[in-house]
């Protein structure tokens, strides 16, 4: 990339270059209700609707299915089962052939779809789906991960081991050691727009699918695989999603495939929009984990050795559980150097819906486990957990304390500075002293405060996914068409990439038209996931714009008889020596001189490599950092609590768009706080998910937001790697900031036993769980 990407352009006459705070590109449409989601698009005449036929067992053989009443119901056009999948009934994204589109003779989780009803209206399809008669032969089921371990621990995919040094020997020789178990709950994505797919059949093998997906290329591959048609026959489009959070990385495949199969079979458009409760029962969630840890340390709180096993409830199939549990291990160290370490994953098979990607992708669970160990050490020694944290931070390169459990050096460490600044700005020490004093005097209400760090690795751990494409056209009037492989789910990716293009040509952002993501324009894309959207697509778009810009410069140099270095793009104009031509004028002249004004851009992340067999490599291009300080108060008679104040200092490198980045940090904090506090998934003994609607599953409300919420970006930070504008990824890293809320709750609980015992507060720390921990500690 050329040097102009790194110049300071914050002061500019242009609207919306890189680093400018710009509002979301669709904001004016969102506030007017005129931004179309898939369910808002006008339906072509003859559109049919699909409904899921769900099973009523957690684990059973299907002996028979009788659809006679279904087929007789008003409006029903047809019923599809596994046997109606033209080529294959499998949509396993890990290619392990373990994820049927529809259950074929075997039910593996409660609610698993076994058939689909297609009818004239959605209401008719849903009513008819209730009329099927299915006979089952029950099989024993396993719902809970602890139960799964006891019963032999069948895995859905190969586990991972990360090893450095001799953890077991070092544990034996450590002056102190302790062991424990932590249970970490899962999380429902609760994207406000549920899953939806809309398929329109075309001529020959063609089909076009609008899918609310973070991964249009995978939807394309799955549709082409099940239909047995080439990928070129399948076009997948998505303009925007009403939230994704990882829940639409693989989970949209099923709906898209079924809509496409029905559309091709019936030669009519088919829309598939499951109801919210069906969506929550039939699509995967964040993995719950059971972490068994052993930590060896000295009397000053220096960690000497860590051994931990991360067991995860993966559900009935592998889906993304391999890379998710891998990423948990990659983050078990958080920001801490473990001199000797042995980490293992245990991706357990259970008779529950197959868990999937969710913001952080296992990283948050890994990190929560790591922070529990810090807490244990602190309470064992009677130290402030922040002191223990600081004593164990990774050191500077060359310090001998910079190697991760996966043998990557931490080269860009800024955690000590971030934490010091936040400790000062949030007045941590004085407030902690005041809280200790308050707790000594207050009988019922107890307070807690905690300051926790975040270090999160950026890149897909599957190296091949770290590539991206973009397509840029400049039209004769100087207007610019932008397309790239990333998808927009509210995170502002489209806006940021458009800023890159505007910046590259030095034109106003309004000149750049952002267009819907489609497999027809940019092929072979990766999921918009792993926080990588701007890093990858921003660079690919930059590459496309750079090519066109170079052609324009070559043309101008020839036309005006000058050298390329005399040509500059400034403020909607191009300066050619002494001459100043408007951007559209130059483009027009270039067109008549037969200059190619369209380019496909490409980017692949340099440097990274990873060998899963040896557990060694450089899986991450860089790390993003952050720190947060939370203060809470709990009622020790009811377990209810309030988050009184939160201070955040977060690292996004040189922000591409501070307005969007602050929104991402705040939003991730609120969502992460929900995961660790109020959001509890609950299955009954029959394996039925009983928290399948917002009536029973509590995501944060406006009133749950911290009462005082100070969020700052570390404005001095810039990415040491040459990323787009030296920015850093922002989607996932701030999700782990609210670990400080969990630990502040933990401190408030610990106060009832004079801070002598680690409360071992599991997540989510619901009021019930807080109350139970208080009672447990009071009893001693």
């Amino acid at each position: 990339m050329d040097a102009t990407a790194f110049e300071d352009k914050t002061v500019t006459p242009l609207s919306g270059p890189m680093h400018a705070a710009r509002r979301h590109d669709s904001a004016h449409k969102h506030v007017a209700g005129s931004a179309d989601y898939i369910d808002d698009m006008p339906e072509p005449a003859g559109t049919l609707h699909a409904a899921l036929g769900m099973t009523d067992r957690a684990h059973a053989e299907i002996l028979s299915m009788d659809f006679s009443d279904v087929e007789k119901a008003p409006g029903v056009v047809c019923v599809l089962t596994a046997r109606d999948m033209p080529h294959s009934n499998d949509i396993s994204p890990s290619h392990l052939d373990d994820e049927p589109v529809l259950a074929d003779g075997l039910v593996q989780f409660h609610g698993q779809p076994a058939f689909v009803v297609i009818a004239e209206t959605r209401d008719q399809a849903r009513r008819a789906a209730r009329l099927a008669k299915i006979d089952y032969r029950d099989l024993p089921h396993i719902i809970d991960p602890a139960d799964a371990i006891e019963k032999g621990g069948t895995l859905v995919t190969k586990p991972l081991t990360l090893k450095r040094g001799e953890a077991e020997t070092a544990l034996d020789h450590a002056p102190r050691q302790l062991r424990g178990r932590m249970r970490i709950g899962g999380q429902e994505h609760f994207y406000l727009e549920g899953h939806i797919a809309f398929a329109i059949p075309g001529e020959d093998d063609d089909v076009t699918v609008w899918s609310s997906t973070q991964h249009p290329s995978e939807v394309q591959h799955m549709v082409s695989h099940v239909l047995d048609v080439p990928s070129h026959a399948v076009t997948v489009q998505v303009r925007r999603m009403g939230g994704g959070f990882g829940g639409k990385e693989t989970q949209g495949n099923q709906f898209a495939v079924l809509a496409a199969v029905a559309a091709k079979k019936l030669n009519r458009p088919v829309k598939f929009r499951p109801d919210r409760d069906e969506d929550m029962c039939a699509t995967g969630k964040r993995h719950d984990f059971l972490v068994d840890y052993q930590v060896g340390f000295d009397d000053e709180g220096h960690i000497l050795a860590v051994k931990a096993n991360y067991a995860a409830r993966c559900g009935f199939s592998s889906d993304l559980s391999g890379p998710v549990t891998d990423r948990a291990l990659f983050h078990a160290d958080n920001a801490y150097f473990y001199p000797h370490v042995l980490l293992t994953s245990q991706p357990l098979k259970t008779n529950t819906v197959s868990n999937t990607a969710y913001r952080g992708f296992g990283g948050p669970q890994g990190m929560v486990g790591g922070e529990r160990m810090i807490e244990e050490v602190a309470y064992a020694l009677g130290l402030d957990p922040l002191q223990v944290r600081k004593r164990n931070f990774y050191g500077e390169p060359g310090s001998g304390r910079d190697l991760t459990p996966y043998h990557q050096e931490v080269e860009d460490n800024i955690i000590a500075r971030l934490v010091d600044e936040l400790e000062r700005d949030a007045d941590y020490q004085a407030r902690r002293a005041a809280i200790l004093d308050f707790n000594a005097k207050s009988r019922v209400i107890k307070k807690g405060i905690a300051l926790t760090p975040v270090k999160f690795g950026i890149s897909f751990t599957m190296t091949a996914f770290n590539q991206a494409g973009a397509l840029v056209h400049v039209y004769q009037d100087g207007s610019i068409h932008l397309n790239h492989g990333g998808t927009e789910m509210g995170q502002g990716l489209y806006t940021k990439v458009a800023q890159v293009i505007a910046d590259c040509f030095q034109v106003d952002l309004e000149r750049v038209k952002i267009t819907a993501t489609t497999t027809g324009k940019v092929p072979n894309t990766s999921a918009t996931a792993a926080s990588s959207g701007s890093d990858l697509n921003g660079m690919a778009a930059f590459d496309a714009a750079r090519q066109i810009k170079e052609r324009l410069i070559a043309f101008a140099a020839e036309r005006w008889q000058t050298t390329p270095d005399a040509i500059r793009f400034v403020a909607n104009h191009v300066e050619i020596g002494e001459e100043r031509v408007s951007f559209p004028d130059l483009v027009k002249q270039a067109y008549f001189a037969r200059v190619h004004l369209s380019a496909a851009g490409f980017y692949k992340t340099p440097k990274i490599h990873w060998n899963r067999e040896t557990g060694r490599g450089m899986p991450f291009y860089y790390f993003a950092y952050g720190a947060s300080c939370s203060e809470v108060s709990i009622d020790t008679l009811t377990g209810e609590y309030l988050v009184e104040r939160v201070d955040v200092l977060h690292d996004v490198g040189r922000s591409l768009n501070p307005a969007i980045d602050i929104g991402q940090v705040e939003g991730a904090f609120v969502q992460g706080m929900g995961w660790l506090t109020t959001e509890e998934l609950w299955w009954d003994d029959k394996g039925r998910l009983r928290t399948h609607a917002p009536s029973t599953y509590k995501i944060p409300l406006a009133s749950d937001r911290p009462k005082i919420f100070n969020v700052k970006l570390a404005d001095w930070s810039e990415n040491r790697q040459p990323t787009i504008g030296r920015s850093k990824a922002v989607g996932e890293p701030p999700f782990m900031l609210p670990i400080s809320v969990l630990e502040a709750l933990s401190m408030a609980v610990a106060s009832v036993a004079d801070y002598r015992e680690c409360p071992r507060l599991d997540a989510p720390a619901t009021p019930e769980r807080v109350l139970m921990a208080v009672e447990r500690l009071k009893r001693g």
Partner: protein
Amino acid sequence: MPSAPPSLRTIPITLTINGRRHDLDVAPWTSLLDLLREDLKLCGTKKGCDHGQCGACTVLVDGVRINSCLSLAVMRDGAEITTIEGLGTPERLHPMQRAFMEHDALQCGYCTPGQICSAVGLVSEGHAHSRAEIRELMSGNLCRCGAYTNIADAVEDILEQQQKAAAE
């Protein structure tokens, strides 16, 4: 879900929606939300949970905010209904719509029409006087992206403008 009665007659009702009178024949079990979205193609109002729990479907009925998924259309015969499309258009935004835009009070945008209708209802109710009250009284509208800070800023902005105007 009970199966639909085979041939129930539709019921004639009259609704004034966004200032325009509509004479409609609706099935008695049609929710106001489905009537707006499916029959009248007013798709600005969103379906989030269809349970009255998420607030994405909030509209104003005779100036009062309700979850349109929890109301049968026939129950609102004669009512005046305002949806997000009736508050303003991208070219002529309602002050609350403008405030949401200016405060970046949205991310994915799916809850936004409901948030705005709810906020307009909140201001006209006159119960909210502080940020804490705004947050409490906006708690029926979920935002999974967690844009609550900016949503409260936008509502507070309009509330303050209105209090100022009333004082003058």
